[in-house]
């Protein structure tokens, strides 16, 4: 209950701070809110855009939530997202299923590099996962300027994937079947964490690794497992974004979805089902920011600003809880 309150307050705080900034820039908050709602949920078209943006956010949010629940600080969803998409692109000629599976595997392997460094050299995963983001980003940059560049070699981007590998869309909308996969993953992770022994052991590792170890939990295995699942889900997010939305790779493909996943997970208080709601909130925030840019000439970075406010509010709540 308290966690829900914290989430709602954080979301409200984000909106309030944004409204205040709008006021400072000479816009009436009520007017801004109207524009924001129109741009995010006010029309079937806007709603579609919000949902399509929410799909990668849901998956990267889940990725971060699983890792954080196990006490593993995976800040590398961005890199895992990119690597997952790259792998999916390479595997696309073998069909949709192959591409999706390969994207999961690639993300898991990419994240597991950080696990290996942690156990081999004691390198903290907070650092290694962030650094691996840059490695992934430059790997993508090299690929779209080199071996994977489109055949006519005009732009730094790939050719589109074969249409047989694209995720099917619903009718004439931009909504694609990735939403089904994302929701299934969400429910599966919820059941895993809350209803299975391994999930329980993973959470225990996150709360108190020492006590978990005395209770017979193989803590090393749990940490490695959490990292692999986390990376796999982020990789899948990248694969789905490629196969469902962009259909090709380019340098700015990831667009910060991996980093936004941290805000999504924190607003959801690391709960898989809560992630569903918070992904929609941040999806709406992004489409609203787009509309604000078009109609009110407010920079689209307000969406990022909103995320920051949410994270800070949640952290404030966290320390408040720790004190009582």
């Amino acid at each position, binding site marked *: 209950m308290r966690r829900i309150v914290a989430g709602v307050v954080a979301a409200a705080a984000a909106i309030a701070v944004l409204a205040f900034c709008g006021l400072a820039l000479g816009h009436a908050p009520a007017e801004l809110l109207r524009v924001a709602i129109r741009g995010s949920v006010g029309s079937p078209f806007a709603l579609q855009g919000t949902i399509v943006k929410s799909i990668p956010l849901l998956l990267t949010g889940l990725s971060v939530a699983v890792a954080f629940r196990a006490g593993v600080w995976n800040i590398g969803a961005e890199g895992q997202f990119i690597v997952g998409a790259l792998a999916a692109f390479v595997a696309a000629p073998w069909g949709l299923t192959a591409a999706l599976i390969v994207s999961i595997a690639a993300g898991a392997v990419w994240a597991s590099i950080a696990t290996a460094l942690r156990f081999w050299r004691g390198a903290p995963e907070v650092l290694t996962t962030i650094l691996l983001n840059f490695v992934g980003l430059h790997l993508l940059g090299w690929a779209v300027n080199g071996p994977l560049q489109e055949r006519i070699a005009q732009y730094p981007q790939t050719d589109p994937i074969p249409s047989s590998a694209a995720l099917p869309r619903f009718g004439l909308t931009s909504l694609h079947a990735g939403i089904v996969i994302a929701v299934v993953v969400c429910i599966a992770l919820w059941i895993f964490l809350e*209803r*299975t*022994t391994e999930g*329980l*052991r993973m*959470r*225990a590792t996150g*709360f*108190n690794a*020492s*006590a*978990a*170890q*005395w*209770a*017979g*939990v193989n803590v090393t295995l749990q940490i490695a497992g959490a990292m692999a699942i986390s990376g796999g889900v982020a990789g899948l997010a990248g694969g789905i974004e490629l196969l469902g939305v962009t259909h090709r790779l380019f340098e700015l493909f990831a667009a910060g979805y991996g980093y936004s996943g941290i805000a999504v997970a924190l607003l959801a208080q690391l709960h898989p089902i809560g992630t569903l709601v918070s992904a929609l909130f941040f999806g709406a925030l992004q489409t609203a920011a787009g509309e604000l840019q078009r109609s009110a000439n407010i920079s689209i970075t307000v969406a990022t600003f909103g995320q920051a406010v949410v994270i800070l509010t949640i952290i404030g709540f966290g320390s408040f809880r720790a004190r009582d």
Partner: protein
Amino acid sequence: MILNLAHIRRTFGATVALDDVSLSAGPGEIIGIIGENGAGKTTLMRIIAGEIVPDAGSVAVDGTVGFVHQHFMLVSEFTIAENLALAAGSMHPPVSFERPRRLVRELSVGERSKLELAKAIAGRPRVLILDEPTSVLTPVEAEDLFQTMRLLADSGTCVLLISHKIREVLGVATRTVVMRRGRIVAENLSAEAMARAMVDVPVEPGRSRSNRTASGREADESRLYRPGQIAAIIGVAGNGQVELATRLRDTLARASAAHIPEDRTRDGFVAEMSIAENIALLAGVRGARARAARLIETYGIRASGPEQRAGSLSGGNQQKLLLARELDRNPKIIIAAEPTRGLDFESTRFVHQQLRAAAERGAAIVLITSDLDEAFALADEIRVIYRGRLSEPLTPAEASERAGRLMAGLE
């Protein structure tokens, strides 16, 4: 007398850290203050140094006090000279140090401890307190330090040395004091009597001390386990008990072994999780609620139900939860480390009952304890652990005769 403490009492919340402690000391004395962790040594020293105020009693110190803390209190980005100046309050401290322009972070642990000592004597104190000064030193560095202590004593300083190493204290001190549970329980004892006094065994005078050959060789740990038998391992804290329990945890197959860890609040259970979840960590989530409800009933855990957070249980009930989780699976081997530490009488009795019952069912029990009464009351055989080594098994009768010497490392 330089130092005169009379009837000092100090409490922290509900804990009595010091209770009616009196101590006086004159110039040239080196007083060894010995006791286990939590005996009140450091609190007493901080009162002498004026860092904390006693609740009752009087403190009289003639002159200044120098205090070398157990943990380094140096500014690592400052040079040696700057650290000395910081302590002495002048840029020309009365102590010289070789190459004083080196940064503290470049110094070895031995040099840092020397610098701490230099800081403490820079103010020319009449009373010098050293809190576990040798814990980070090599034997050679420690001997150096003792030499310095003797020099200071010869020049009229009164030195107070806190330690839990019996041999080292006897080697340097002119007088020794044993503290236990906030009181001074004995003065000027032999090494063996000191070990006994630290962990609370009555010293029985007039007993013949047979001079048997040393039994310090490491016993084969697998011989610890005999079905239906309770084997106790006793010793002064810090002699490898924690390492032994951890090693047994990591080597025994968890399916047939139960573990009661020494640090209950940190290692015993996940405080943030419910009773049912803590039990399910080991037994699995299937039927976890029903199992938890049954165990709450059987073990008499005072809880509102399986969903109560484990961290909100009282100490005794937390230990019951731990016993319930570990013993309900009918383990073949049970490793119990300090299973009754900090428990009230009733909970202690319950734990002992459960351990005896498990032994009767045929489990092999290893009881690692610093409570000798517990060891004598429960164990079929007793071994002493000293510096990580286990003695040969002793019968309780043999143990009451030899345990003190073995714990002090004299056999």
